[in-house]
């Protein structure tokens, strides 16, 4: 493992071409598949967890990084880009596969660095420093108390290992500690209320940056929650926060209705998707845990595609205002077809596998409270309403001659088509679950 990593790092650092990077990615993927097959009978490697969470998350990471790398080919600074992508891959791999609490926290915090660099280096507006600062402040304020929890955990257990056979402490931690753990990972999810850094970061980040941000970074929090679920005092936590989550699950969709900026809308829609995860976490049963994985996987596939479409549309219209983008069905039928497919995917409409995750979310968290029925009704209804908002405004509205559009070169269609084609085998993963 280590020799492979070192040799690939060597190969990578001394060859600045993108082709080798892609080769490296695929090699990494195949190595991972191979080692998964090797260890499929036993649950643990010596350091790496090889369960379904890590498997699907790694698949998703490779997918997202691959398509965002293709999208970012137009940027000239190749070496820095490669460095960022490589570090992103390493850190996400670390978070998704480790069973060590310290390493989990370490990689979780480290993953902030590349995205900060992306925002500051490749963002295009002067407000990007503020949004980067907000990202830093939010994550640091809510994650530093985790160190104290880590100390407590170590002093009680004698090790940082999170896997059950090594844990002497089977009972959950106190309410304060579980709140701290929850907030640590919920700020990256993000749960509504801790989400203000997300739209700012998305608006300022370049397209490939927001693809990574929505595709991979949001899942780090979810995976962290899944890893530490046995430490959380779930009954106390649910009595404290269930009402909040129920109300704000619906409220985020209402907020999504009132976005005028397309990219901001997509960012908020990912918040509304992620609001399902704390609810699923609180209703801690077998189905809900699987549903979390599926939700994260399919959100990780759909939202980068949507962000990529935002980027392409921005390069056509040089605006992201929903009022000004219109009549896409006449001007470019291909993009509008992709928008419609992405609409189905984010809406979790039936032919797409995200529907399964939605239904399983509803099924498995129904047991939490009987009032959830009404909130789920509003949630599923409004999630169509805000998605229909952008679709009808952009695709099906009548275009007017005063709107100027740039032609999009065929090269920019490549990442879109690649991502859609890659999505198909990814969605077949559902059968493995």
């Amino acid at each position, binding site marked *: 493992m280590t020799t492979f990593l070192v040799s690939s790092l060597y190969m990578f650092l001394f060859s600045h071409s993108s082709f080798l990077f892609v080769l490296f990615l695929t090699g990494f993927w195949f190595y991972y598949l191979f080692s998964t097959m090797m260890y499929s009978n036993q649950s643990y490697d010596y350091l790496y967890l090889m369960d379904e969470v890590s498997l699907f998350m790694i698949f998703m990471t490779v997918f997202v990084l691959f398509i965002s790398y293709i999208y970012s080919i137009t940027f000239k600074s190749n070496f820095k880009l490669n460095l960022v992508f490589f570090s992103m891959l390493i850190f996400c791999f670390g978070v998704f596969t480790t069973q060590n609490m310290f390493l989990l926290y370490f990689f979780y915090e480290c993953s902030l660095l590349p995205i900060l660099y992306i925002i500051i280096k490749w963002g295009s507006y002067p407000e990007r420093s503020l949004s980067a*600062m*907000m990202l830093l402040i939010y994550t640091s*304020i809510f994650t530093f108390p985790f160190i104290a929890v880590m100390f407590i955990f170590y002093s009680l257990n004698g090790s940082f290992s999170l896997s059950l056979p090594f844990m002497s402490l089977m009972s959950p931690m106190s309410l304060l500690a579980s709140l701290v753990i929850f907030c640590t990972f919920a700020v990256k999810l993000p749960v509504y209320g801790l989400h203000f850094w997300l739209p700012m970061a998305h608006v300022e980040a370049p397209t490939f940056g927001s693809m990574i941000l929505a595709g991979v970074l949001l899942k780090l929090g979810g995976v962290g929650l899944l890893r530490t679920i046995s430490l959380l005092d779930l009954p106390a936590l649910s009595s404290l926060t269930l009402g909040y989550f129920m109300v704000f699950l619906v409220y985020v969709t*209402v907020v999504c209705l*009132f976005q005028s900026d397309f990219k901001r809308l997509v960012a908020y829609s990912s918040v509304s998707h992620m609001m399902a995860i704390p609810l699923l976490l609180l209703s801690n049963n077998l189905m809900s845990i699987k549903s979390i994985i599926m939700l994260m996987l399919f959100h990780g596939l759909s939202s980068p595609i949507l962000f990529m479409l935002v980027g392409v549309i921005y390069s056509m219209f040089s605006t992201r205002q929903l009022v000004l983008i219109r009549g896409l069905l006449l001007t470019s039928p291909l993009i509008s077809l992709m928008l419609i497919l992405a609409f189905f995917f984010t809406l979790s409409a039936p*032919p797409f596998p995200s529907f399964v995750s939605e239904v399983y979310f509803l099924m498995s968290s129904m047991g939490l409270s009987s009032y959830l029925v009404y909130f789920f009704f509003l949630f*599923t209804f409004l999630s*169509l309403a805000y998605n229909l908002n952008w679709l009808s405004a952009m695709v099906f509205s009548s275009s007017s001659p005063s709107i100027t559009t740039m032609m999009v070169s065929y090269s920019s269609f490549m990442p879109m088509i690649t991502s859609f084609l890659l999505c198909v085998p990814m969605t077949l993963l559902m059968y493995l679950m």
Partner: protein
Amino acid sequence: MTSFYNHLMWFTFLFTSFCFSLLMSFYISYMNQALYVSINMFSLWNNEMSVSFYLDYMSSWFSTIILLISSVIMVYSYFYMAPYSKSVYFLWLTNLFIFSMLMVVNMSNLFFLMLGWDGLGLVSFFLIVYYQNQSSITSGMFTLLMNRLGDSFFLLTIALFFYTYPDLTMFSSNLTDFLSLTLLLLTFMTKSAIYPFSPWLPLAMAAPTPISALVHSSTLVTAGLYLMMRFSYLLYSSYTLMQLLLILSLFTSFYAGMNSIFEKDLKKMIALSTLSHLGFIGMAFSSGLLHLAFFHMLTHALFKSLLFMTMGDIMINLNHSQDIRYLSSGMLYTPMSCMVMYVSILNLLGLPNLSGYFSKDLVLEMMNYSSSSILVMLVLFMNVFFTYYYTYQLFFYSFQPIKVLPYQNFHSPMLGHTLCLFIMAISTLLFGFFFLSHICSLTLFYPVPLVNKSLPLFINLIMFLHLFLNTKLFTSNSPMLNYYFSNMMFLSNLMLTLSSNLYYNLSFMLVKSLEFGVLNYSLNSYPKMMFTHLSSYVLNLSTLNPMKSVLFMSSFMVLLSVLI
């Protein structure tokens, strides 16, 4: 010419599947069999999700009818959609629509039923906004939102079904949870436009006419009623729900009939007649006449699609004018289309020995024995009166001597087009007798008193005599009354205004006060402020004499080490 081949290809495909389906349904209904095919798609963790098709006489006959209508529409739309050069787009969407309807008809697992159910709603949106003008987008959005209401009910139903009893097929009969039954009924009511959910149905007229012929006859609106019949074992278990459904569907039928009296838009009038028939079928279902309701649904699908198609033929020669007062010129110049239209109208009226008669009169007669209240019977016969009224209105206007609008650009349809409509008309004429005498063997025959038997015919006769001897329509001179009844007793006004107001005022207030207000201030500007304070502090430190700061730091370190 490519569009011709596209249409031909889809027609061949649909027609062969129609023939296959016809043979299948003959086999199933004559052998008294039901086929249940269940394929285990994936075992998701602790429960298996199997795609299950249930083919009994209901589903096979219904899919046969759907395939017949849709294969005729493939021919029809070649003529009708010729000016719009998007034949591939149109045909793919239409066939997706038909395919999702067939899935709704044939599947039995709730989870996979959602595939067709959601597909119907979403694809119908794309078809309604086909013309891409402002009004079609508005009505498409409204239709989709109403259908999405049904979808959310459906999702909740799936979740509740699973929560109470983890079997999602329609055969899971040990379920008496009132909430999930209510949600199930509400789901089906949204699709088939029963009382609170009906305003989308006239709005869906913005679609091209072939699509309206599909939507309003056999596909979208009857999906809800059909699934009601499918899940009748569950729904009949609750008396209160069936009572509610009876009242609401009668009400739907009532205001739709009332509305269609005041309507002068051809397509909208036929849409409203569809609505009144939906109410009629829903009423028949809720009072226990399951198989008769199904029979009427089939005959209604046949004659209503025929009516829409002929109406499109007439309309295309009137420059797409939908005013009913121009209909008289249609009679003169396209006699064939008008003849076919009369066939479907007479079916709709229920003239004896036509197919509408067999289904509708049987329902009316059986309602006498269903021990329903006096008011129900009264409203039912009022609805029958309305039906006669608006159909005779079509007759009346088509025989007017004044030719208001002369033909400007005459489109002569192909021979195949006319032939298809003709064959369709003949099958419509014969279907009722055939189905009643050969297939629908579950119907019991009652001896009926002469008064009850002749009551509908009597109303019919009165209407006929009044219109053609008096040559005058009933009208109301009060504009407010006209306005009240031509907007479904303000239901459509209320829905549109309320949704706009809720959307704009209430949710904007919510968003502005919390997301842009309190939370923004407390969570967003406070860290910003802190950041500026901190950075200014660091800046001050850096502008100090470097030696001073080193001294300060070292003294601090010494202090720290002493303390520890």
